[in-house]
C-alpha cells in the first residue's frame, strides 16, 4: 500500500536517511525499530511531506507522493501523528479534534459522530472536551494526538514514538488502543524506540541503523534474533 524505495534525506549537508527501503502492506502494523537518531522520525517526516527526499521514491497505492505538499498527502489519507504529541496547547480538546478533520468538508453530524468514536476509544478525553490542550496529562495528550489523527479518516497512520515519556501502565493501554484501531482496518506504520514493545505490537518490522534499513522480517522472528536482542533489547 505504502512503499519507500531507496529513500535518502539530507538536513543541510548531513545525511539523516540513507537508502531506506520498506513497504507497508494494507491492514498491517509495520514497525521501524532503531536507536535514537537512526533516521526513523526523518523517514516519517519525509513520507508526510515535511521534508523532501533527495533520492528515492515514495508511492502510495501506486501513486508517487514524494515531494507533494503535506496538505495533498493528508488529503490522500496518510496521517502523521508527530513525535512529542504536538497537540495545540491553546486550543480546546474539541478544537484540536476538529482541526484534525479540517480537510474533510463534512457536515456537523458526521463530525460529531467521529468525535463520539474517538471518545469511545479514549473515554478519558470525553470528560475533557472543553479543556485547553496544555492542561492535559502526557497520556491524555498522546490520546488526543491519536484521536486528532483519526478525525481525518486516515487510510494509513504514521505513529512517531507514541510511548515517549509515558508511564508503563499508560503505554500498555495506548498500545491496546493502537491494536484496536488496526483491527478496525487502519494500516499503521509505527516508529518506536522501545524495541520490545514495537516488536510485540507489529506484524512486520524493519531495523534502521544510521539511516539504513539493515534487517527486516516478521516481528516475531526479529524478537528472537540474537543481534536484535543484543543491540536493542539490552539482553
Amino acid at each position: 500500500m505504502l512503499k519507500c524505495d531507496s529513500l535518502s534525506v539530507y538536513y543541510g549537508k548531513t545525511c539523516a536517511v540513507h537508502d531506506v527501503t520498506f513497504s507497508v502492506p494494507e491492514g498491517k502494523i509495520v514497525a521501524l525499530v532503531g536507536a535514537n537518531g537512526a533516521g526513523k522520525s526523518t523517514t516519517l517526516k519525509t513520507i508526510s511531506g515535511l521534508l523532501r527526499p533527495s533520492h528515492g521514491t515514495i508511492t502510495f497505492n501506486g501513486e508517487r507522493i514524494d515531494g507533494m505538499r503535506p496538505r495533498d498527502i493528508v488529503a490522500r489519507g496518510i496521517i502523521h501523528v508527530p513525535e512529542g504529541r504536538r497537540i495545540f496547547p491553546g486550543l480546546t480538546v474539541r478544537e484540536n479534534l476538529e482541526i484534525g478533520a479540517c480537510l474533510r468538508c463534512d457536515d456537523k453530524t458526521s463530525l460529531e459522530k467521529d468525535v463520539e468514536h474517538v471518545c469511545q476509544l479514549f473515554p478519558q478525553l470525553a470528560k475533557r472536551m472543553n479543556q485547553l490542550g496544555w492542561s492535559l496529562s502526557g497520556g491524555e495528550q498522546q490520546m488526543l494526538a491519536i484521536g486528532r489523527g483519526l478525525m481525518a479518516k486516515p487510510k494509513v497512520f504514521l505513529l512517531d514514538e507514541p510511548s515517549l515519556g509515558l508511564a508503563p501502565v499508560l503505554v500498555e493501554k495506548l498500545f491496546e488502543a493502537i491494536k484496536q484501531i488496526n483491527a478496525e482496518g487502519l494500516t499503521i506504520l509505527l516508529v518506536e524506540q522501545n524495541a520490545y514493545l514495537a516488536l510485540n505490537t507489529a506484524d512486520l518490522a524493519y531495523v534502521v541503523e544510521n539511516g539504513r534499513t539493515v534487517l527486516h522480517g516478521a516481528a516475531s522472528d526479529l524478537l528472537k534474533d540474537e543481534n536484535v536482542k543484543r543491540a536493542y533489547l539490552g539482553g
Partner: protein
Amino acid sequence: MRAILQAEDITVRFGGLVALNGINLSVQEGQIHALIGPNGAGKTTLINVLSNVTTPTTGRVTFKGEPITGLPAHSATEKGIGRTFQNILLFAGATVLENVMIARHCRTKYGLLEAIVRTGNMLNEEETVRQKAFQELEFVGMADKASTIAGNLDHGGQRLLEIARALATEPSLLLLDEPSAGMNPQEVNSLMDLILRIRGRGITVLLIEHNMQLVMGIADVVTVLNFGEKIAEGTPKEIQNNKDVREAYLGRGIQYA
C-alpha cells in the same frame, strides 16, 4: 574512593510539572557512571542541574566538597565540570579549532588592556590556548579537521567536537548527554574507547545513554531514572537483572496476549 560530586534531594518543577523528584546521586571519583531511563525521565534535567544550567527547586549539589548550587554555569565550568549537549550546541559558524579555543576561556586570564597592548603574557597565553586546543582535537582524532566550519561536520564529528570542547575546559568531571546518538556501530566502538581514555586521564565521567551496548560495556555504575525518580542503581549486571528496570525501561515486563 571518594565522591567527587554529590547531589542531595534534587527536585525540579517547571510550573506544575515535576521533572525531578528528590533525587540523590553520588558520583565516585575516577568512575564511569551511566544514567539511563526512558525519554522524559528527567536525565537531561539532572545534567542541567549538575552543570548549573538549571537551578533546582530544592536540593543541593556539592562538587569536591564545595556547594555549587545557585552559582552561574560558567563558574561550575571553572571549578571543573565540563559537559556536552544532547541537541548538539556547537558554535556552528566557527571553525572546529575556534570552537575548542573558546572553551579555553576560563583557563586564560589576561584582560582587555593586555589584549589591546598585546603584552608578553597575553601572547604566551594565546600560544598555550592554541596548543591545548590542538591537543584536544588530536585526542579525539579530529586534528585534521581543525579549519572545517563546525556546522559542516557530520553528526558523529559534531558529537566528538563537543567532547573535545568540553575537555578543553580541563574538567575533573565530564557530563556527556547522549554522546552516541546518531553514531554508527563503528563510531560507537571508538567512542567507547575514547570514553575509557578520558577516564584514563583521571577524569570522572557521568553519561546519559540509550545505547545499552555502550552502557553495559564500559560503565562502572548505572543509575536508572523513571518519571523523575531514581528506581535503581548498581553495576551493569545488577541493573540488567533488576525487575523494576525491565518493566520501566528495558521493556520485558509488558506482555501482550
